[in-house]
């Protein structure tokens, strides 16, 4: 469509204002994380008058962030591998062999996208399986929450891989496991990357499940530690900002490098059936 220079200038201005509104809170976190306690008390947009890098070391010390950081890495990585792998296995078979039973199972699983968890009876399940307040327990829980959407995303991708490839592999003597691992997984790499990245982000940002199921602070992920840290140091916005910055930094870095996968996954998941 044709637009004149004035309209284009107006459109760019609106887009830039929208971007600024999205960036300002992040900018606030960054500049205030370097300020002194006094200068940061108003959380202003002014630049730091002097750089207090020791805010970060203070936060890491006081907030026990090293432990939490490794917990978060462990939870997000392990649950993503587990969840994506199981979702891929299920989606592969459910999509390739569309028997009546498999169709029912597929709908049953993706129903979970809408199903809310019942945290009370889930506590019982966690107690019975001895998973409550354990690292393994939270990994398994995260993986379980990733299954429905993962199956949905991967299922829609399996259909786009020609069946003839499977048939050729089977004729060459591939068993089901070899077919899945050697033929399917490499071909499904793009959708596995998307599912994996979305799962990882979801697990890294998760706050509710640890709040319910992790009492022992040695098991806390970053989100819970930051929340707890805020409770103790809410007057020191420089420290709180440094703390938040350390939590969002990995996510932002991941976003910068994997934007393509994230955006494609979200739009295929939502726009395409």
């Amino acid at each position, binding site marked *: 469509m044709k*637009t004149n220079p004035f*309209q*284009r200038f*107006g*459109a*760019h201005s609106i*887009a830039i204002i929208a*971007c600024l509104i*999205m960036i300002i*809170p992040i900018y*606030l*976190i960054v500049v205030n994380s370097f300020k002194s306690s006094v200068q940061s*008390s108003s*959380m*202003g*947009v002014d630049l730091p008058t002097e750089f207090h890098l020791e805010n970060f070391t203070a936060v890491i010390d006081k907030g026990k962030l090293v432990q939490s950081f490794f917990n978060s890495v462990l939870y997000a990585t392990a649950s993503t591998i587990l969840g994506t792998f*199981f979702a891929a*296995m*299920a989606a592969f*078979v459910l999509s390739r*062999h569309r028997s009546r039973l498999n169709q029912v199972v597929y709908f049953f*699983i993706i*129903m979970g*996208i*809408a*199903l*809310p*968890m*019942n*945290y*009370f*009876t*889930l506590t*019982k*399940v966690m107690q019975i399986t001895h998973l409550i307040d354990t690292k393994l327990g939270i990994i*398994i829980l995260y993986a*379980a929450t990733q*299954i429905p959407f993962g199956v*949905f995303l991967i299922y829609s991708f399996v259909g786009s891989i020609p069946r003839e490839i*499977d048939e050729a592999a*089977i004729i060459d003597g591939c068993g*089901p496991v070899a077919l*899945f691992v050697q033929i399917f997984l490499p071909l499904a790499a793009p959708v596995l990357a998307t599912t994996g990245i979305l799962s990882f982000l979801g697990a*890294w*940002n998760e*706050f*509710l499940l640890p*709040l319910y199921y992790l009492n022992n602070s040695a098991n806390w992920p970053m989100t819970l530690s*930051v*929340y707890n840290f805020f409770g103790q140091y809410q007057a020191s916005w420089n420290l*709180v900002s440094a703390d*938040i910055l350390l939590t*969002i930094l990995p*996510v932002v870095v991941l976003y910068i490098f994997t934007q393509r996968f994230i*955006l494609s996954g979200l*739009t295929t998941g*939502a*726009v*395409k*059936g």
Partner: protein
Amino acid sequence: MKLRTHYPYYFVLGALVLYVVFYVIPAISGIAYSFTDWNSFTTDVNFVGLDNFATIFSSSGNYLHYIGNTLVFTSATILLKTVLGLGLALLLNEAVKRFVNVYRALIFLPAILPTLGVALIFGSILNPAEGLLNVFFRSIGLDVLAKGWLVDPHLALLSVVGVDTWKGVGYIMVILLAGLQTIPKEYYEAAEVDGALARAKLVYITLPLMMPTIIVVTVLNVLYGLRVFDIVYVLTHGGPGYVTEVLSTAIFREFSQGRYGLGTALSTVLFLIMIFVGYFVIRLLNSEPVEQ
């Protein structure tokens, strides 16, 4: 070819077991427990019939108010995110030629941030005395707009809706933009030949063809809105008083106070609402796909 041998059932087991054990069994047994007085103070669990539901739906308690808040939050965020998201998507799709990817990436950025961090920082921005928003309003002479965003009972829920829109509008915009890009350019060219104005093109071409995508984002917003927890819990804790309490924060409160039976009944109410919505979700996800 024998499908069953090459695509064996046991491949589904891992996903199915995790899903059934941690989702379905708690959900189903939760319905049973919602008819009991299960709590953390005694080990006895007694059948109490519909007592918990009577408490929830009685006009004397606050629970109906929490359900109302959940519905208000859900509808308000749907409206704001869809209208703003569509506006931004149209802007990026039609009016702006360059830097589209940069704009899109920046507007989407808040969607991937942990809600916890977002809520903490907005707690400071919306601070009545020193918060950036009020400082900004005062600096341009609009002192009347400098409100007690999160502490004023009339504004608190709206402020939460506002912060949630800030975080979520980019996600909705990205999906709507993908939908817009599927509309063939020829339709607009034909309309232009016929002398259609921008408004006519929006009303007679864009909106009708965008309906499937708009329905999808609405569903996504409903699923998110009904379950919302993080943003409310960290921003206001359901306060001041209980004016911003929603179903999920109320459920967590029951959990921490040990009233499991009542909390499970609340979860069951949420469950039933979601099952109702979920039915339509599945119908939608499997309806005519919109081409990429």
